[in-house]
């Protein structure tokens, strides 16, 4: 018998890095070699965090740490089945690598390209925001990233809608990929980026993206994320964003797929009048675990932040919300709001939430709230007494529960994509319930 020993977990990734380091994209660039080596040191020191680490108290990465992952063996056939496009323009990544042949980027008023192809021009930019020393998943990403989306919107450009499709392929052994996306909007630029992450039914993989997002004065980025990974997949994503005076970073995340998912967002508001909206819906069933962790840094006066997260839990699923708002002493006139609500549709589902306010300024308006509840029996009965069948009545109330998070999505393309994703999720649950 031919037994191949694979190292698993953190040692497996470190081993891979040692073997690959010169062959990774940009391997000959000294600044990048240094960056990767430092990240490797950070990852060696931290490994996959356990639940003893405060930031990971509610999310157990053991299923990731105990698995062995290979490089993705993307099949060479080009006739890939792509999901229907959400917008006109689309950048396609397969197993974390940019695929110009599958993308459609003609006629955009700005340039879309691949990080891997422009590494020699990215010194000082790549890694400017990410903190591998603090976030081990960012360390792993920095150590092993191969590619990512490189977006630069020049001053004043109306970028319209761009879709970022991240597709995983199925392979015999689990694979891991760590795309590094760099997005920069110059003064007054505007863009809606709709990101869809998905993979075929049986695929097992770790998708570990890191985003570094810079929103300049008066610019507006709508960043919609539709996480619909394969049922057995892991997605651990980390977003770092800075927003300058008068700019807006508007993030909406739907967590509907995957087996174990963490969506970690760090936003720093650096100039007066900057704004951040972070809204999201987590739709969980079966054995799914989804974690939304936000850290909002109010580092300038008169900034506003709004967060509304809604989690619907079925089966034995688990949801986590951790939301930290830091209001620095300079950040007078801060207006902060955070609401996190969960709807438990099964007695075995569980939700953990941890809001955290750290306020060092005195002239501040900051509120937060969290609720966990079940469907209201009286509401269900009211609908049924009008002839509406029970499953439909429950579906209406679940949609109503999500409404407050979803209604903030004003971008039409994103709203359509989101509604379709929510409906698809609900239809699958009904099938499961009916089966």
């Amino acid at each position: 018998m031919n037994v191949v020993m694979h190292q698993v977990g953190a040692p497996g990734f470190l081993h891979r890095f040692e073997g690959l380091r010169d062959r990774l994209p940009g391997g000959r660039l000294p600044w990048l070699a240094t960056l990767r080596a430092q990240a490797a040191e950070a990852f060696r020191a931290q490994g996959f965090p356990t639940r003893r680490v405060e930031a990971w108290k509610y999310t157990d990465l053991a299923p990731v740490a105990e698995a062995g992952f290979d490089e993705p063996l993307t099949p060479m056939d080009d006739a890939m089945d792509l999901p229907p496009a959400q917008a006109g323009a689309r950048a396609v990544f397969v197993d974390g690598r940019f695929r110009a042949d599958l993308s459609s980027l003609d006629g955009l008023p700005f340039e879309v390209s691949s990080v891997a192809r422009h590494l020699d021009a990215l010194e000082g930019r790549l890694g400017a925001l990410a903190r591998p020393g603090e976030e081990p998943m960012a360390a792993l990403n920095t150590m092993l990233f191969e590619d990512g989306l490189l977006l630069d919107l020049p001053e004043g450009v109306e970028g319209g809608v761009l879709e970022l499709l991240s597709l995983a392929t199925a392979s015999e052994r689990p694979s891991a990929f760590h795309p590094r996306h760099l997005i920069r909007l110059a003064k007054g630029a505007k863009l809606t980026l709709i990101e869809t992450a998905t993979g075929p039914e049986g695929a097992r993989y770790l998708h570990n993206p890191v985003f570094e997002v810079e929103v300049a004065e008066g610019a507006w980025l709508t960043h919609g994320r539709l996480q619909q990974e394969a049922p057995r997949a892991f997605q651990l994503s980390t977003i770092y964003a800075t927003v300058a005076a008068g700019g807006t970073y508007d993030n909406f995340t739907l967590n509907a797929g995957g087996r174990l998912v963490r969506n970690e967002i760090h936003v720093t508001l650096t100039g007066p009048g900057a704004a951040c909206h972070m809204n999201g819906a987590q739709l969980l069933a079966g054995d799914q675990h989804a974690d939304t962790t936000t850290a909002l840094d109010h580092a300038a006066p008169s900034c506003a932040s709004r967060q509304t997260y809604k989690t619907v839990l079925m089966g034995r699923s688990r949801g986590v919300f951790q939301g930290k708002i830091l209001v620095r002493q300079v950040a007078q006139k801060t207006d902060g709001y955070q609401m996190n609500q969960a709807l438990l549709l099964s007695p075995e589902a569980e939700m953990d939430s941890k809001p955290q306010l750290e306020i060092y300024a005195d002239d501040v308006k900051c509120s937060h709230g969290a609720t966990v509840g079940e469907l209201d029996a009286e509401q269900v009965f009211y609908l049924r007494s009008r002839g509406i069948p029970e499953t439909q009545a429950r579906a209406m109330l679940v949609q109503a529960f999500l409404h407050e998070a979803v209604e903030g999505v004003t971008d039409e393309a994103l709203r359509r994509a989101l509604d379709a994703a929510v409906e698809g999720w609900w239809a699958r649950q009904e099938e499961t319930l009916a089966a």
Partner: protein
Amino acid sequence: MLKIEGLTATVDGKPILKGIDLEIPSGEVHAVMGPNGSGKSTLAYVLAGREGYEVTGGSATWDGHDLLSMEPEERAAAGLFLAFQYPVELPGVGNATFLRTALNAIRRARGEPELDAMQFLKLARQRMRELSMPEDMLKRSVNVGFSGGEKKRNEILQLALLRPKLAVLDETDSGLDIDALRIVADGVNAMRGPDFAALVITHYQRLLDYIVPDRVHVLMNGRIVRSGGPELAKELESEGYAAIQARAA
């Protein structure tokens, strides 16, 4: 015909209905009156199939259907409608969506084609005009931020749209001023006909000036203690429940 025989029910293990006998032939409107806590709402909920209201004996049939063995939505499909004493608020559910979903569910059950959004709006607007309801009530979440009177009118709007064959109105008059009361009564009277029966629950005689019942029943402590014609309501008004109870005892 609604036929209730020896109906007993408990809530939280506590007996509330203690043997109700009541028959309402199609074409008739019957009033059930009684003091607070006598079990009027319990009777309404038991007929509509609310969870937590446990039937411990007796029967209730509607046109031969065994109501008590049916799901709430099946009862609605069979023609039953309950106007709630306290209409339920549904934040995030638009009133128009709610009304159309309900109407189409009922139409499906009756084998009628469903209405699309345009057809529905046309019908709803017409009914709302008849009930003097402002049109923006379609856009708001169901009953959220509605005044007491608006909530009751929204119940009557549902009655007018769903056109049930058996309506149970639970204190639809409470909290209404005289104009609203007249509008609500007109809404109910418009439904009257040989294929329509109603059980009008009320605490006061006032509503019965506008919806003149064929029969009046007095419910006290879980039992119907007296039945009579419309004049019984007047008698209650002048003598009070205590006198009736004393005489019935």
